[in-house]
């Protein structure tokens, strides 16, 4: 190796310590340690705002192989605080690559750590749960670092959406005449969701997380979309209240993805719970009950809705086949539905792609 390896320490709140080398960035960052099992898609993962506040371990050992291209950004910047790898590729090999991963991490000040037994780390998180952790290139005392990991306040109860939402409202127009107008609440919305809605023929007005129901309705939408986003949905009272108000007052199709799904669930009075280590990967099997089909989906969530807490007017439309987790519900009478996994993929399979045109159709039918 040509570059001088800089030692890095990873300390977990339960006292587990990993030693690796820093390939990008420096300093000390706190976050929730999670793992992602996608073999490709590190750039999309890095830039997905849902990962705000997290330290992400990639289970695939070679990361960075195909470099980084602006086309694959899911937002304007990375949100992952530290990317933990077995091995980071120095020189990408792909005609799409605009730069190498290390350069990209360096540019955005994201810690890149390699030389970690990522499988051991993953197994640890699987058995002990996602936990508060710290990555440091400045601390060499492991015990001290563990103490700091323990002392860190963590992500639970924190409103991260406000940190990643857009500052002001903006509109994206489809090619040709719009089928419907969606007001999309941005809690950390991935670009590909906007792209998919637009591809489905929607005019999309993206509004900040704290937008009120009245403000949204003033935009005269044909439907409401609640986006994905990071962290614990419970502190997002304003969003839950907005959703409640929209459900109660606006007779409009509504669609939520991931955090949006959790918010919608909470708005209907469902209860949520924290998954032990979450679902993060591109190979999660979902059963879509209406079609009796299995869809392989991209997922990224640490929280879920308790199936037995759903009110009678909601029915479960999808379950995760691995652990039975509720992956989607819909209103029995009204055009309101939501999905826990990521139909926009990016990264991951396109099996749930149809939901965007389905939503567009609902809106079109509803206005007609």
């Amino acid at each position, binding site marked *: 190796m040509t570059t001088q390896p800089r030692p890095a320490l990873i300390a977990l709140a339960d006292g587990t310590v990993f030693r690796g080398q820093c390939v990008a960035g420096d300093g000390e960052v706190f976050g929730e340690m999670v*793992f992602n*099992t*996608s*073999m*490709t*898609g590190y*750039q*999309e993962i890095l830039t997905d705002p849902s990962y705000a506040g997290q330290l992400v371990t990639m*289970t*695939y*050992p*070679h990361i960075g*192989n*195909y470099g980084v*291209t602006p*086309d*694959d950004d899911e937002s304007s910047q990375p949100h992952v605080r530290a990317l933990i790898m*077995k*091995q980071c*590729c*120095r*020189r*990408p*090999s*792909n*005609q*799409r690559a605009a730069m190498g991963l290390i350069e990209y991490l360096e540019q955005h000040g994201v810690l890149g750590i390699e030389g970690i*037994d*990522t*499988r*051991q780390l*993953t*197994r640890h998180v*699987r058995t002990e749960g996602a936990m508060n952790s710290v990555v440091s290139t400045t601390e060499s005392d492991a015990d001290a670092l563990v103490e700091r990991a323990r002392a860190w306040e963590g992500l639970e109860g924190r409103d991260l959406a406000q940190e990643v939402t857009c500052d002001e409202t903006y509109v994206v127009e489809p090619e040709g005449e719009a089928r419907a107008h969606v007001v999309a609440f941005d809690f950390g919305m991935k670009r590909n969701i906007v792209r998919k809605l637009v591809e489905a023929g929607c005019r999309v007005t993206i509004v900040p997380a704290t937008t009120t129901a009245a403000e949204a309705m003033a935009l005269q939408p044909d439907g409401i979309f609640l986006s994905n986003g990071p962290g614990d949905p419970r502190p997002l009272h304003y969003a839950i209240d907005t959703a409640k108000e929209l459900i109660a007052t606006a007779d409009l199709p509504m669609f939520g993805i991931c955090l949006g799904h959790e918010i919608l669930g909470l708005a209907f009075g469902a209860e949520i719970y924290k998954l032990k280590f979450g679902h993060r*990967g*591109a*190979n*999660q*099997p979902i*059963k879509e009950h209406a079609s*009796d*089909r*299995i869809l*392989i989906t991209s997922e990224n969530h640490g929280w879920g809705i308790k199936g037995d807490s759903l009110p009678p007017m909601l029915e479960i439309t999808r379950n995760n*086949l*691995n*652990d039975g987790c509720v992956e989607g519900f819909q209103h029995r009478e009204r055009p309101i539905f939501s999905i826990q996994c990521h139909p926009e*993929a*990016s*990264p*991951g*399979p*396109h099996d749930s792609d149809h939901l965007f045109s389905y939503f567009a159709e609902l809106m079109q039918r509803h206005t007609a």
Partner: protein
Amino acid sequence: MPRRKDLQKIMLIGSGPIVIGQACEFDYSGTQACKALREEGLEIVLVNSNPATIMTDPEMADRTYIEPITAEVCERIIAIEKPDALLPTVGGQTALNAAVELAESGALERHGVELIGAKIDAIKTAEDRELFKKAMDDAGLEMPHGYFVNTLEQAQTHIDELGFPIIVRPSFTMGGSGGGVAYNREEFDRIVARGIELSPIDEVLIEISVLGWKEYELEVMRDLNDNVVIICSIENFDAMGIHTGDSVTVAPAQTLSDKEFQVLRDAAIRVIRRIGVDTGGSNIQFAVDPATGKMVVIEMNPRVSRSSALASKATGFPIAKIAAKLAIGYTLDEIPNDITRETPASFEPTIDYVVTKIPRWAFEKFPGTPDTLDTQMRSVGETMAIGRTFHESFQKGMRSLEVGRSGWGADGKDLDPLRLSDAEVREGLVNPSSQRLFFIKAAMDKGFDVEEIHRLSRVDPWFLDRLVEIFDTGRQIASQDDILTDRGSLHHAKAMGFSDRQLAFLRSTSEDKVRQARHEQGVRPVYKTVDTCAAEFAAYTPYHYSTYEQEDESVSTDRRKIIILGGGPNRIGQGIEFDYCCVHACFALREDGFETIMVNSNPETVSTDYDTADKLYFEPLTVEDVLHIVEHEKPEGVIVQFGGQTPLNLALELEANGVPIIGTSPKSIDLAEDREHFGNLLRELGIRQPENGMARSVEEARAIAQRIGYPVLVRPSYVLGGRAMVTVYDEARLDHYMETAISASPEHPILIDRFLEGAQEFDVDVVADGDIVMIGGIMQHIEHAGVHSGDSACVLPPHDISAQNLETIINQTREMAQALKVIGLMNVQFAIHDEDVYVLEVNPRASRTVPFVSKATGRPLAKIAARVMSGKSLSDQGFSQRIAEVEHVSVKEAVLPFNKFAGADGRLGPEMKSTGEVMGIGATFGEAFLKAQLGAGSMLPSGGKVFLSVNDRDKEGVVDVARRLQQAGFSLIATDGTQVYLARHGIDAERILKIHEGRPHVEDAIRSREICLVINSPQDEQSQHDDTYVRRAAILHGVPYTTTLSGAVAAATGIEALQVSPPQPRAVQDYHRVG
């Protein structure tokens, strides 16, 4: 959807003999399918002609037909068994072709048999390139532009438009047979003509070249509910232009971004849906232009394949097993994932390691065939290795290849950069050959940069960069004098995949010293688990690989355990037979309550199925790798005598390192291999051996040959499969041989034996327990001495031996087993020459014939032997020394790969060349021989014109054959000498010209299919040119041929049997009462 209740009895077709392009991966898939369907309470009818398979064990199916896989025979079996359905997708191309024929002839409809897995339309659309191309058009997917043509003239009209290089793909041939890349007009004409000839429908596709594009494969599964999942992506290290079977391949894909991968995934799903494979696995190949990212579809296999076996082993997802369950109506979500237990099979495996497959070639076996790689597959086996990084996995693969290398170079055997010019290295990079990876190493040694190596070899820079990292680590090891005491650097070197042997070479020390240094530094591997899910869920299946990291997941139990060492990659001389023995050892010892631990590196095998043994280590079979496992597991015993030469080569060193080897001691095994010691032993026992000697120089060799008298048989010591063994008729040939052979094997002397011309040969397989020696079976070779036993057809029981000689053979076998203190299996080869019995060879270990004998006699020799080794005597197992009595006749026939090696001569000799074997069982020798021939793809004719041309030694004997054929209604045609000789004995034969005598000559007659059988025994070495052409023509045009008089006699007997009645299929279960 639960399983269909209307299906009770299912027929499976296997893939027949091992041939290039179709190896034991189909035993793996077929065995899985049998197990999966029987689990469901279904009755299984199995057809497969290959006795060395696990699937043809009588316990695997309810009704097992070891019969030729032809549509006629299959229909007869269908008529007997009346199955509800036929599953054609787990037996490779052979099964698929048979199923298509059965469907098209109306046989399936006549007998009310449903095709499950894939319907006939789907199979045809996938297999017929023209239909496939149309289907892809419909699905909006692009393929390389090209044309289907039926004549060379037609083909030539497209040359200008397509532009060289042009890819030629014959329709409906397996493994790319007859295909190629044409760079100029001359090559184009030759390849197109050959392709049209080989294609059963006289058609080839000529298309634009996508040479140098990145090549990918996706393994796809679909269920009846139209759910589709991708099991694995594979990226070829070698770009387009080299058959994927001949490419180094890597899982998962390395150089595709998620966006690009999803394009492939979507396309794969569209392909399987459009082709309409109902259920099960398919393999879809893509090419991607590295410059633009443009993707084209190359082809699809609507069945499980070599790649799906690899994908199964690479991910832990058992494709064939799941495919079988889907075929009977289950959906993916109804089938549990064995490994995680809690999660269903309806997901896409994700892996957290790198898998590398490296092909194993055997060009050295086919002199006259250029060592070049193209779109036709030529490798005979493969090895797979798992590592946490590409570096580690690649180097582990390189040291698993059994080519005498300890990794990717840096082992003292590299091409010498000083003796290679830059031009030669460039040539080695541009023209792919079996040595390509070593040319890349040489290029780096000579200072070529990655860009240049990429430009010349088209290997993606990502892979080359990793190789540079390995290369640099090698340099660092060589230059860092304290590396063996520097824990960090040593650990890094091991993590880069360097073996102790490479380290020893680079540090000019011994492997032992490196091992010791590592132990002192605490640098040892850990074992990780193949779990389908990158550790997201707990794994219950102990399927492990080693790596140099932190955490060890392999939990060593305190059960009684036995390690079985497998055979590594298939090669000629070491194939599925040894894996069969290993699997049997696992089964038997598992039944007896031992924890069985399998170690092997061959992804095609049943032994590396995660549920064959209790625990599987997918690891190279080297002293270093095995010692680690032994140290970790502390087994009660390690079995080395079942896996062929690979584990045997390790035996002495393992034993010296304290490994508890059970069964016959490695010293005894070694003694039997050591000519001098063994000769002494035989003299003590009063057993006769052909006169022989051992030479270390040309002078010694001449002196020995002089003493013994020509012809003599010469070979290097310590070889399997008669490698480099030849019969030498005079001193000049001897001198030539000594020059080439000695350089081939410098540490070992050359063995010279008297050649017993015309002798009858016999093989005996026994199991001994130190007390009793049980004769498992005695086989008589059909070909006379001089043909390697692996290439010779043989018959059990022997049909032409005196009672006295039989007794001598049995007694001598017992004496030798006792003298060698054999515990387990032993094989002896005898020759009877002028009524004298000679011992040719003794191997106190599993032999190639063990599965055949087991199937012929109903006694599972390998299981019995495994139990003996674990301490259960033969009498404890209810066996005596009595030989099994059989009422039927079994014939084994070898299957040769000459059709894959342009320019290779189809003659048999002392060096083994066959890749596989088939078995025919019948009431008479004639019927059994006929079935064996049919199974081997050689349909003995029932009438027509037979060509005869034999050497002087065989003239006398051929008279009777000619007379019998004439009486059977055949007309005869012969070359000059033979014709005159026959006429003198009152037999009329038409005369035909030899090739040098003018036209039309015999080759023309073969080509125009006037001749239905060729009997051609080779002249002596000097004048064999003509014969070579005759045999090549017979091979090329698929005309049955025999090169020995004894083969001709057997053929006549088979033909007579055929005229009485067509061969009658009969299930193995009816021959032997099981148990």
